[in-house]
């Protein structure tokens, strides 16, 4: 009997929001996001904070019984020229330190110090600023090409400007708002989060294609089709959200209860996906739905007449 309840909520939702509201709310969110990203670009030179892979630098995690700020202080005294930019507890009795870009000699000195004071059981990752820049350009290209490729396929599938445009717009909005949330949640752009944004394109389009196909290629009233599409779509997103949520919790918080260390790359990917999927719920079931509702009502000549008489 629970399944009827879901339909009940869907009905309530569809009655509560007019087509105009459905389009306006996500559009405002998109515009605000663009403004935030623009401001961030203007003030820092990059719309999203860049991680070590893109700026160059070194990340080290060492096993230590001391709290992270003590270890950070130790390195700051030892290496005044290349002192750590930040430090934190990495779980599993480990401390994570992040350094800015350094040259080969400085890096070798740091390596030597670490291996003679902290043994071989050290996690280390060093990227040069030069390669970081190259990687940045590649990453921008990857996201851009992925997006264009997706748009081409979507247009090819629906062969109609407005419905395909709506899918592309909501995928675009997903990425933009997700990037803004990354800014607000202080998640920096890493290879992992770029991958997450690419995955988001895939997930986002899944539900949009479902919605568009159901509404345009099936008989029945718009509301009826919409209700069914929403039921399927919400199930899809909730299974994905559930899986990603587990991934996020385990990779991020396991070290509070167990001796495991945090897995940063999985934690980053899953958090961005969680935020992105939540945003996608809005963009699919408000923005895309709103545009399609307006599009189908405009298409039907009888409704148009009725609309004029009002």
């Amino acid at each position, binding site marked *: 009997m629970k399944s009827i309840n879901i339909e009940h909520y869907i009905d309530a939702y569809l009655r509560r929001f007019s087509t105009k509201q459905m389009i306006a709310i996500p559009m405002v969110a998109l515009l605000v996001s663009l403004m935030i990203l623009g401001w961030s670009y203007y003030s820092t030179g990059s719309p999203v904070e860049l991680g070590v892979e893109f700026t160059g630098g070194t990340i080290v995690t060492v096993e230590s019984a001391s709290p992270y700020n003590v270890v950070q202080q130790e390195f700051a005294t030892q290496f005044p020229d290349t002192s750590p930019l930040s430090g934190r507890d990495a779980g599993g009795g480990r401390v994570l330190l992040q350094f800015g870009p350094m040259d080969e000699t400085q890096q070798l000195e740091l390596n030597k110090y670490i291996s003679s004071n902290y043994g071989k059981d050290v*996690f280390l990752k060093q990227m040069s600023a030069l390669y970081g820049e190259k990687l940045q350009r590649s990453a921008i290209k990857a996201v851009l090409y992925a997006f264009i*490729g*997706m748009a081409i396929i979507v247009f090819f599938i629906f062969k109609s400007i407005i419905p395909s445009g709506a899918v592309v717009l909501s995928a675009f909005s997903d990425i933009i708002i997700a990037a803004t949330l990354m800014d607000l949640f202080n998640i920096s752009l890493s290879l992992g989060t770029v991958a997450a944004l690419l995955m988001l394109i895939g997930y986002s*389009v899944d539900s949009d294609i479902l919605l568009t196909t159901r509404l345009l290629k099936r008989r029945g009233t718009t509301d009826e089709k919409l209700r069914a599409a929403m039921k*399927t779509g919400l199930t899809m997103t*909730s299974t994905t959200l559930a899986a990603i949520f587990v*991934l996020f919790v385990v990779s991020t918080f396991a070290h509070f209860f167990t001796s495991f260390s945090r897995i940063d790359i999985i934690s980053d990917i899953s958090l961005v996906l969680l935020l992105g999927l939540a945003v996608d719920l809005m963009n699919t079931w408000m923005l895309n739905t709103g545009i399609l509702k307006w599009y189908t009502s405009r298409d039907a000549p009888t409704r148009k007449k009725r609309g004029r008489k009002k």
Partner: protein
Amino acid sequence: MNGEEGEKGLSGDYRVMLLVGALILSLILLFLPTVFPELNYGGLRYGLDLDGGSWLQLRPEGALVQIDADMDQIISQEYGALLNETITLTRESSSEVSFTTNKIVTDKQIESLGYGEATVLTRGGVTTVDLQLSKTQVITTYLENKFKTEVVIIEDRDGSWFEIRKKTSAEELESLLIPVKGSILAYKDGVSPTTLADTKIILENKLNLFGLSDIKPTIVDNEFILIDLAGIDIDTALDLAGTPGKFEIRIQTEGNETQHAIYGEDIQSVGFHKTDTYGVWGVPFTLTQQGADALKEVAIETNAVIDPDNHNVIMLLDNKEIYSAPLSKDLADSLKYVPVQQMSASFGTDTGSKERAKQLETHLRAGALPVNVEVIGSGQVPASLGAQFKELTAIAGLLAIIVVSFVIYFRYRRKEIMLPMILTSLSEVIMILGFASAVKWQLDLPAIAGIIAVIGTGIDHLVIITDEVLYEGKLPPTKVYLTRISRAFGIIFAAAATTIIAMIWLVWMGFGAMRLFAMTTIVGVLIGVLIARPAYARIIKEVLKEEQEE
């Protein structure tokens, strides 16, 4: 029983057979090494971040340039500096330059700058020098003399390039070209693909030498060399590959001044370090004919053959001195008249000398890289941390499946739907892993994230299929079922195509770690769309039919 009928209906279906076949094959591949370890095939391989080890990303230092310079300017400037007076060019053509000088010079002196063969004629106090050369050769030599490094000609689609095998910049080159009225036509940082490949092979040989034949450096982006060293810590890795060094032999001229004799590539072979009859440790090595000639000439020019004690032979690695000793009396005497190919670098009789001899042997043997390499990225994951990551991701994966099962059950309230869905999803994981073991992928954390992403979209697609089939809450007649299924697959194929398109750039551009992520995603989507989901559509129909018949 009904159950048996259902089984029968399914077992004849080619989609289900394909799924079962692919599953069996995957399981065989995954468990092959447990049963037949000697085959050394199949089973999962893990990347560095799960198995522990270190990685290096190296970039050869150098520049490819196209330049234009005035041949006469180079010759008059270079010889003017050598002879310390202004020389007068008398004749020039594309293959010959002549000039006159008031100084008395020998052809050896003229040829020491390396600008081709010289004919010297002195008549009435005026010396006429005739040089056979070409413009390319003149520019090459000029660059070699100025940069004190090797310069080679590289041909490609865009024409002919000078490859300067040393870290430099457009500004530095420009400043060297201004005095000879030259200009840069094109400047590219980095080295040619051939040089990159040579560097890679020499690194590979070096790793082989240390018994690490499993480790294969790879070229990334036509610009970098990536080396994954499983089970090796970063310090050792950097010692082995990061500082491979450029080998050079020079001979002391006066005081701190030295003159270049040969580079590492003129060392033909290297023997084992050993003691001679007097108990002195040394490393025997053989020079190429060319190298022997060069060494003889330089030894004579620098006067090392007459006065060896003031003209040490110096071996340099990365411009750092690793060996310096005078020529032995015997060798000095021989070199006056003939080139010598067999030599030995000697140390003392103590154990420290033995160590130094051993080290020199390694340096000589490894062969010098054609260019220096810069470490632009490196890292290490300790094996213990890798093991934790492996365990934790496995736990996360299992938990995710359990939670998803609950969500599915909560939505459909039927385990007849939930079970095939979860099992299909699991079968996709097994097939992806089977494929990974067949093509020997080294699974790393991003690859696992890719598998999880695929499972996410996979469940999404199974929900689409189920909802299409169950549009009215129960199984429709076969005809309707077929149109519904084809509609569901329309959505699924469209979604899969967009995911693949979104990922393909990552594979194509292939930046390091994310490449495997994209490849697992693409392979996973294909396996799901072509094998698992068609079979699921068939299975769910049988399951629902059975349920309705009951």
